[in-house]
């Protein structure tokens, strides 16, 4: 997290806000509710009390404006900058402006007003931007379901650095607050791994790391900052070299990516892969370029899927242990790269040689993540 120079903060714990005008994008009552919820995100974890007033000058004046609007920081039309807010101080301090050229909503379309407002009020209370991609105070917008939204530990540590905890619930939210997965956590386990046109992607919770062969470090993003339609905590992923598509699995659904674009007509049912009716979730998948088959891992068994014939090969399922001795019988994720298979299980990654049919190295799950 970061604060403003001098750790600017309000000298009082009781603040006021006033909504000067309303966006026509949403019913006025929904705007009121989004703004109220956005303040509650911060008052829940601090001693702050923030009340709405309907006339006069409030500490935090809220307005919807476009382009040049008198503060020497003009907005830029649709996209780009969505809003901005001033750090705590008298006068314009705390004031929050939303770019009316954006489309604000209560849902996932356009920009969710609650999410944008909660971020801006972080600034209005004294927080700067965070470089933690899982933090609310990360500068780039990414949609999360407001119903399940919670501040990250990074956000809470930042705001409590300025104002301390909520005296009524001193420590409740911090232990539960989600932490952004750390690539260098020796106990890191993964949800799914796939290649994508020469890159590798490692999925964990609502994040993914992207590793390009030309670049030493990995980049971490929230899944929804690239694909708002995709769920978090995906189960499996593989790249079909024939079709130049990446398939992403969660539960009994599958999505397809063409490059970084979501294919139309998805999600579809995983039954399209000809799996037995009782299977509602897979653990991992990889594309065996050598055999031109997709290996689909479910529990301690796996299936071989023939993409050309669009069906599961005869004689499957087989037990993982019998075909891939030494990888431990069940996998979290799997990927084939440069003729080797990599099986991820908990904090270990098994490098498997398809030709000699044996594990050649046991490495840490974060081996590729540049720690």
């Amino acid at each position, binding site marked *: 997290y970061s604060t403003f120079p001098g750790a600017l903060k309000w000298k009082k714990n009781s603040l006021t806000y006033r909504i000067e005008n309303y966006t026509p994008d949403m019913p006025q009552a929904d705007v009121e509710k989004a703004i109220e919820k956005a303040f509650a995100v911060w008052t829940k974890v601090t001693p702050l009390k923030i009340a709405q007033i309907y006339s006069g000058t409030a500490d935090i004046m809220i307005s919807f404006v476009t382009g040049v609007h008198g*503060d*020497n*920081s003009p*907005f*830029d039309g649709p*996209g*780009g*900058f*969505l*809003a*901005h*807010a*001033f*750090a705590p101080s008298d006068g314009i301090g705390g004031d929050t*402006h939303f*770019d009316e050229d*954006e489309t604000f909503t209560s849902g996932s379309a356009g*920009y969710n007003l609650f999410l*944008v407002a909660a*971020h*801006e009020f972080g*600034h209005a209370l004294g927080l700067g*931007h965070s*470089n933690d*991609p899982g933090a609310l105070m990360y*500068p*780039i*917008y990414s949609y999360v379901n407001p119903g399940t939204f919670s501040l990250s530990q990074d956000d809470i540590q930042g705001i409590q650095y300025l104002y301390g905890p909520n005296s009524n619930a001193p420590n409740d939210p911090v232990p539960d607050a989600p932490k952004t997965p750390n690539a260098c956590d020796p106990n890191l386990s993964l949800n799914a791994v796939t290649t*994508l*046109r*020469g*890159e590798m992607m490692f999925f964990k919770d609502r994040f993914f790391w992207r590793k*390009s062969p030309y*670049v*030493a*470090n990995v*980049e*971490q993003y929230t899944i929804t*900052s*690239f694909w708002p339609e995709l769920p978090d905590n995906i189960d499996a992923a593989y790249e079909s070299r024939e079709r*130049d598509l990446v398939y992403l699995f969660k539960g009994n659904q599958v999505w397809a990516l063409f*490059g*970084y*674009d979501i294919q139309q007509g998805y999600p579809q049912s995983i039954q399209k892969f000809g799996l037995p009716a009782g299977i509602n979730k897979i653990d991992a998948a990889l594309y065996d370029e050598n055999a031109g088959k997709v290996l689909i891992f479910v529990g301690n068994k796996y299936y071989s899927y023939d993409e050309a014939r669009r069906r599961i090969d005869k004689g499957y399922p087989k037990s993982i242990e019998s075909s891939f001795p030494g990888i431990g019988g069940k996998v979290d994720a799997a990927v084939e790269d440069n003729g080797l298979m990599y099986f991820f299980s908990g904090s270990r990654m098994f490098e498997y040689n398809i030709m000699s049919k044996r594990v050649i190295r046991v490495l840490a799950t974060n081996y590729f993540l540049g720690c």
Partner: protein
Amino acid sequence: AYAVPVLPDNTEEENAEFAQEYLRKLYNLTSSSGSNFRRRGNEMTEKLKEMQKFFGLQVTGTLDSSTLGVMKKSRCGVPDVAH
């Protein structure tokens, strides 16, 4: 085809102008029309590195597609408090 996010087919020059504007608004790049070409170029490189470091990108000081991809994402503005 590369994997990186497909960006609208802007020309290189348009992308450079976009990046300059982004860095001017968010990283205090001084005006891009200054006299000293070399100094301007150095400052642009330093500001690009500052932005790339913040976002955990490869710190190259050059406007690569990953960096441009992050610049084009919708985000929070930063008001000009100095003024």
